[in-house]
């Protein structure tokens, strides 16, 4: 899971889209993520995790949309963070911004 950007109107969306949700344009190009965000929601999943540990997850609000992101540690609500693409798909909160 990553983001794509519409070449016609510039709107970003998740890459399961085949047409732009705003203008219907069909030309969507990859849009790598490395930008600040605010933590809108946070949880720590404690069951059903494949490696038997816990999984810290947040909803990170970027300037134009929200994404689910993993984190290496619990993150407080409303914290300012940096979100990047994860190598195996999805997004990761890599560092709180000071």
């Amino acid at each position, binding site marked *: 899971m990553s983001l794509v950007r519409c070449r016609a109107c510039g709107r970003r969306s998740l890459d399961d889209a085949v047409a732009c949700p705003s203008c219907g344009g069909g030309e969507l190009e990859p849009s790598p993520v490395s930008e600040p965000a605010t933590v*809108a929601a946070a949880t720590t*999943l404690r069951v*059903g995790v494949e490696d038997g540990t816990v999984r810290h997850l947040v*909803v990170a609000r970027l300037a134009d949309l929200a994404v689910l992101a*993993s984190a290496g540690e619990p993150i407080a609500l409303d914290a300012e963070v940096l979100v990047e693409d994860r190598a195996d798909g999805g997004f990761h909160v890599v560092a709180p911004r000071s």
Partner: protein
Amino acid sequence: MSSAGAWLVDTEVTPFGRHEGHGLVACAAFALVELLRRHPGLDTVDALWLGSARPGESEGWESGLGVAVARAAGLAGVPATDVHAFCASSNVAFIHAAEQVRAGQADVCLVVGVEHMSSYARRGPLRPPALPGWAAEMSPPVFYALCASRYLADHDLDPAVLADIAVRNRARAVDNPNAYFHTAVTREQVLGSRMISDPLTLLQCSAPGDGAGAALVVSAAGADRLGIDPASGARVVGLGHRSAGDDPSPPLTSFAEDAHAAADALAQAGLRPVDLDVLEVHDAFTVAQAIHLEDIGVARRGEGWAVGSTDGPMVNPSGGLLGRSHPLGATGMAQLHSVRRALRGAARHAMVQEAGGLQHLGQMLSTSIVLAS
């Protein structure tokens, strides 16, 4: 918009829980056969609608389950249609049946909802195998835990207010013979149960289950054909069915599709939220009940958790998903069963609300049904 009426005149629900040895077809047929026994004229049914979330996952019924259930119940030849809409499967099936009757295209329809989660091929959260790996992390418990974290923070609430929803619903399930859980729980037990995904503990999450339910919906002509007084049932006065829009940054503490579906149903009925005496809503997780009640409009933002604790409408009188368990495709029928019984008592207007879908940042399928006596 049709002008013909539709009446919910009877319902039947099997016990919810674990039904080893009885699969999807048997569970669904048990519910239908009970309706057939009570209404001998049901040998001429115009349509059967079946709702089931994951029949392929449990027993390989990717399609055709409705036809198989009809045959097992002695209704071979009845046009049968399967509906798969996650938790809302049988609500959506009911909406199709009621709309068919209201449109004058059928006079007697049966709806059946069924799920057999004991036989799912894979344990774990609801996730279609076709979805990529990231979806596993946005499982329903995680989605609602994220919602709960925001809900509690936005309204400066203690997690105990959500625990109290489980306490109330479990207490109401005690007297429901079809519920899976017949023991009340305390706030301390709810908060002290195993943490699933912060802040939601085990007892704030509905349990998987097996079970089925069925409903009979008819037109006035259909009621006459069956020798039933439609006034003995509940008139279907409003239906709502919406899916999520494309809000790229949903609020997590309300679902627009939920509010729109409820508004559609209430507008059709000419009712306001305050007119509702009884609601059966989607408490798959405690916070879901609070948010859905606010979206429907029976509570202000941040106050949905308290509805049903004092004065006001009765919420989930049959125990909700938290008390009954949540065999996905059967839950809607259990909700209809509950409100039909309430409407035979003192309640005047009742609503069934069920939400289902891929909880990927709030992408849900939401349905609402209003019934009035």
